[in-house]
């Protein structure tokens, strides 16, 4: 049984088909990135998993069950949704204590969770004065209260400063790889999760576009090396077996040779290179194509 299982999930809001026949699973001990442009259906999928949204068809299960049928949901699933869902007049500690009370967890978990997410100093402050990043940390703290083994996070990096993003990456990896949790994290920015995730699921306009391990997706396809030089380097590259596209005068895209081989070739031919760059992976290409030509038509679906 997979920790998270989504099977033929569909959901429409009015005429907008927010999620259209999406299926994927997330296994314990792995981090899965759920990627797509804004309005692609990520949030609807995650909210269906949490029984906040009722799917029109298909199933979204955690530990093989519907979230709404879990007797102690906080001990099985930790969720981070929008960062704004706090009462501004309530302190961070009280927010978590209320959840502890309702879930039957000891109140001490609230301070422990605040400590973990680095909010111990702000525990007694009203959330109204929190920055977006602090709210995001508080939301993460609420997900940790019941020490669950499944984490569902919707754009958790939103509003975090670079140090916070760095910390979040490490924390998610720690949860999955050291504590054996299943982590599903959505993002519309590939680079945010690229260094964190083991697996990737890409969705656009409600439909699943691509899924697989990060490694398999990045190794597929031709990766190119950008080479900038004023010299006529092309014949030497082609003689070495490479396929060369001239992007513009002086800028070549080279397929079939890696950067090191190209450097060696340049040295052998006494050619000055001013740039040698491994082009972004196939995954990045796929993702960029999706994000570029997708209108934000389904924005209201959020």
């Amino acid at each position: 049984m997979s920790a998270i299982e989504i099977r033929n999930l569909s959901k429409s809001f009015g005429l907008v088909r927010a999620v259209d026949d999406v299926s994927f699973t997330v296994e314990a001990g792995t981090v899965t990135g759920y990627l797509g442009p804004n309005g692609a259906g990520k949030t609807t999928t995650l909210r269906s998993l949490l029984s906040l949204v009722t799917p029109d068809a298909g199933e979204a299960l955690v530990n093989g069950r519907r979230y709404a049928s879990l007797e102690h949901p906080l001990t099985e699933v930790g969720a981070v949704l929008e960062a704004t869902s706090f009462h501004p007049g309530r302190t961070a500690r009280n927010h978590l204590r209320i959840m502890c009370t309702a879930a039957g967890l000891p109140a001490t978990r609230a301070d422990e969770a605040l400590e973990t997410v680095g909010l111990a100093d702000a525990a007694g402050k009203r959330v109204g004065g929190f920055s977006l990043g602090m709210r995001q940390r508080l939301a993460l703290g609420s997900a940790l209260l019941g020490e669950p083994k499944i984490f569902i996070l919707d754009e958790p990096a939103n509003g975090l400063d670079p140090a916070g993003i760095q910390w979040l990456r490490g924390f998610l990896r720690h949860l999955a790889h050291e504590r054996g949790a299943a982590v599903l994290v959505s993002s519309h920015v590939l680079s945010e999760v690229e260094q964190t995730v083991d697996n990737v699921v890409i969705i656009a306009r409600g439909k699943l576009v691509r899924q697989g391990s990060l490694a398999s997706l990045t190794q597929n396809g031709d990766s190119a090396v950008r080479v900038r030089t004023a010299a006529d380097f092309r014949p030497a590259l082609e003689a070495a077996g490479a396929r060369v596209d001239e992007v513009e005068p002086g800028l070549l895209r080279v397929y079939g040779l890696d950067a090191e081989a190209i450097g060696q070739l340049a040295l052998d031919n006494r050619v000055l290179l001013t740039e040698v760059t491994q082009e972004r992976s196939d995954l990045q290409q796929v993702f960029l194509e999706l994000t570029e030509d997708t209108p934000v038509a389904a924005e209201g679906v959020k």
Partner: protein
Amino acid sequence: MSNLIRAELQKLFSTRIWWAMLIVMLLLTGLSLTFIVIFAGDPAQNGAPGLPALDDPAWLPIGLSTASGGTIFTMILGVIMMTSEYRYQTITGTFLTTPQRGRVIAGKLGAGVLVGMLFAVISLLVVGAVCVTAVLIAGGEVSLTGNRVPQIVIGVFASLALYAMFGIGLGALIRNQIAALIGAIVWAYVIESIFAAIPALQVVGKWLPGGGSQALMSIDVDTGLGRPDLLPAWGGALLLVGYAVLFAAVANLTTTKRDIT
């Protein structure tokens, strides 16, 4: 369930609205009590009913019954307890913690009863202290067991508690905070008073929440328009519980089922 009731109480007492509401309730109850003290002993004139004098044993129950004016405030608090979850989107976290949504509303109804009783205790203590002092200064005798005083005390407890439930049920049905508050206030101040004041409408009025509340305390004072036609006290209590449960049940089948997006 006791966990959920405690969580709801924590929610209410961890923000500031409850004591603001308490202060406003005490101020307005105090205002109407002041008039009842000042005009005590005024004879009936122009068909308007008079008030018994302070040293008349009939005055004390009238003075104490001003505490029932707190119903509007516990009702508003009930509406806020429910609708602020939608307003601040804390409903997401609430339903994540307790995905069985009916249990969340049941917990709120339970907490509402307790909060209503707390308000009743405070209101009765303040009103009671003023009334007893006024009677003693006027040279009257205070009897806390006679003259329907126990019944009025019970009536104040029940009506403040049940109106809080009523507000929660209403808030579950109408998720928009402003709409729910306006609805509640218009209902309590306009519609109810029309049905309570006009004898021909009292046949219907006694079945409304305000009629139930009056029945609880048997405030059968002749307002000059004829004695009101009311249900028995237990009937009034059942009526208020019935409204709250009806609203909550309808909400459970409609608004509460909606997607949280």
